[in-house]
């Protein structure tokens, strides 16, 4: 449905082949398309416009590297700029020097605040802290019960206020302040305040959250936002920021397929770091935010340039040269394949890798990726069950050796055959890739990676 930005960029620059430079004329046409693609990724209109203007300035007159085509060069410029805009290395929670550290969590209805509070409690617990959850969402039916259930799952206490009949007392600032006092008394060093979802245009509710801030004096205020949010994300974030001057942003529901352009918009408008990314329904699924991953996501799949960059960093140039020599001399063996697979894993797994490769991305449906991730362990187990000689000279692996390897790996003979079969095709593709030059070689490499996945 949504064209990916990378393909658009490369398509637009196809006609430029033979020109070594990005110039005023050829970039103007492309920037319109880039802007449209950004809008489709839910980047705010104004943010998208100033972004493309900046890209234009940067790209103008840039010498196109001989190794990459102009389109790819532009992709790289766009990617680098995105990463920069999304912020540097991820920042954690700012802890107070005098405990307890008070963290206020706020956002729109349904953005995922309560679930995030549970996740954050677990995250802090794993860091060796003793959190207390304050149930300051006093309005939504059963919100307190929801927080209690989550808290029980991670074994963290909850502070809530109820009257004699068990009904929730609707005084959020009081819950917050009393929770802080209770934490101090019971030696809990972090208080996480879960607040009710509110619309930024609801003056009464915005005043309430400002009141909570004033009275509970949080050292960290986090604004929670759904990664599927559209153009209005900027207004929401701006209003919350005006009222609360929050310290960081939490992006939720990133396990969906939204491109998450809202992240870029919020970041560029309120200039606050994105601190966490929430990626699933399990309470352990909370990660520090990675600007590079987000940039790739907004760009869509197929960032060949960054793949090459990453591959170079990881493998190291010497190693890469050694590998090339091996392939040329047809000495690439199972041990090398295992090393390569481990590299792939280190780069963020096959699924991550697939996202960076256009062809692979097309071949692999999201659904099967999980399966493939699991498959790496199998391949590894099979190769590790081989002797060094078998790994170096796969041709000696006969029927009885296959049976022994399968037993050793706890798998079937046909699994061993599967690994051997894909090893042969990978070797073949590699050989072919070596004979190609320039861009062709990259494509060959991509095809090889694809095969590596298939054999998973």
């Amino acid at each position, binding site marked *: *449905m*949504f064209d990916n930005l990378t393909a658009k960029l490369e398509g637009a620059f196809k006609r430029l082949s033979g020109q070594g430079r990005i110039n005023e004329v050829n970039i103007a046409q492309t920037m319109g398309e880039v802007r*449209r693609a950004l*809008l*489709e*990724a*839910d980047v*705010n*209109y*104004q943010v998208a*416009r100033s972004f493309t203007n900046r890209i234009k300035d940067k790209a103008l007159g840039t010498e196109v590297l001989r190794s990459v085509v102009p389109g790819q060069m532009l992709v790289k410029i766009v990617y680098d700029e995105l990463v920069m805009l999304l912020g540097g290395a991820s920042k954690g929670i700012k802890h107070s020097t005098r405990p307890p550290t008070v963290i206020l969590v706020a956002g*729109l*209805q*349904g*953005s*995922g605040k*309560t679930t995030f509070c549970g996740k954050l409690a677990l995250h802090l617990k794993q860091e060796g802290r003793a959190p207390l959850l304050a149930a300051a969402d006093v309005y*939504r*039916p*059963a*919100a*307190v*019960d*929801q*927080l*209690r*259930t*989550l808290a029980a*799952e991670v074994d963290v206490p909850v502070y809530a206020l109820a009257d004699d009949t068990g009904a929730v007392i609707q005084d959020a600032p009081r819950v917050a302040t009393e929770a802080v006092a209770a934490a101090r008394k019971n030696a809990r060093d972090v208080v996480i305040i879960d607040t009710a979802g509110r*619309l*930024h*245009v*609801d003056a009464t509710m915005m005043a309430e959250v400002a009141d909570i801030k004033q009275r509970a004096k949080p050292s960290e205020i986090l604004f929670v936002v*759904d990664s*599927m*949010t*559209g*153009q*209005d*994300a900027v*207004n*929401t974030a701006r209003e919350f920021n005006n009222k609360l001057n929050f310290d960081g942003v939490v992006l939720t*529901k990133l*396990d*969906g*397929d*939204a*491109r998450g*352009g*809202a992240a870029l918009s919020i970041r560029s408008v309120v200039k606050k770091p994105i601190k966490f990314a929430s990626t699933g*329904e399990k309470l352990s699924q909370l990660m520090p935010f990675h600007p590079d991953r987000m940039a790739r996501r907004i760009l869509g799949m197929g960032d060949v340039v960054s793949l090459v960059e990453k591959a170079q960093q990881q493998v190291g140039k010497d190693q890469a040269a050694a590998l090339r020599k091996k392939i040329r001399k047809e000495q690439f063996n199972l041990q090398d394949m295992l090393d390569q697979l481990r590299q792939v894993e280190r780069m963020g797994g096959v699924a991550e890798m697939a996202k960076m490769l256009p062809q692979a991305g097309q071949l692999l449906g*999201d*659904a099967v990726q999980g399966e493939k991730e699991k498959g790496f362990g199998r391949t590894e187990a099979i190769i590790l069950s081989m002797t060094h000689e078998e790994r170096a000279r796969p041709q000696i692996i006969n029927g009885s050796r296959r049976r022994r390897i399968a037993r050793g790996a706890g798998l079937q003979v046909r699994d061993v055959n599967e690994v051997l079969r894909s090893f042969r095709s990978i070797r073949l593709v590699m050989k072919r890739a070596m004979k190609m030059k320039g861009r062709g070689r990259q494509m060959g490499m991509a095809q090889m990676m694809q095969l590596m996945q298939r054999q998973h």
Partner: protein
Amino acid sequence: MFGRKNEQDQARLEQGLEKTRTSLFGKLSRLVRGKATVDDAVLDELEEVLVSSDIGVKTTVTIIRHIQERVAKDRYLNTKELHALIRDEIARLLHQRPRATAGNSFESTPHVILVVGVNGVGKTTTVGKLAHRYRQAGCSVVIGAADTFRAAAIEQLEIWARRAGASLIKQRHGSDPASVAFDTVQSALARSTDVVIIDTAGRLHTRTNLMDELAKIKRVIDRQLKGAPHEVLLVLDASIGQNAVHQAAQFTRSVDVTGLVITKLDGTAKGGIIIGISNDLEIPVQYIGVGERVEDLQVFDAQRFVAALSI
């Protein structure tokens, strides 16, 4: 069925859409101020206004193209005409889709409604408000608490059922949602209840196993009562961006969505999403939520929507 409160509804709708109206048409007025004709600069700014209202890139491009065609044909387009032209475009986009029919009346009882959507869009609240609507219309209602996953979802629904005067069928947290759906339909059949509304857990449309679970719930319902569920409502948060299309496609693939519910339309300038969705999707918008009160879930009416948007 829900006809009586028309005038009140219109007033609430106008109130709920106020921000959208002032934002969209207010910006339009600003951009043509001091200009006599619609030129490229105006169109460029128009693009910004439309996209910023979450109308969506595709729909915006369509609207702009139509206006360009008009300009080309008439050689000249007065900026004053632009207003009317855009209103017509919006009306055209909204009317080209089949009108929502179900929900206003139904042929057989129990009338079964399955409510689905991603996390946090307001499914449970919608179920509560729907129950209230049907109760007000004099129907007996049973709600099935098939969101057995989210913490305290059942408790939340209990409160809503009590408020609406509907009965609730539930099992324990973590039990099989298809089994809850089964019990609910059974209960409705036994007590000849008019309306069955089944709440489901929020799930991202990319989770294959969870989407399969939803398909199973639907199958179980159909097995007990041929042709049920009669309505499958996909709930979308109005602040959603371009991902709405993906969601609708995936949910339709699993459970054949019959109508959309757009929630949280009040307060902010997000009404544009309805225009984009009507253009991009084949599924009619059935209900819209224009406020927090129980009565603020309304049957969507394109004509009224356009009227409320351009008073």
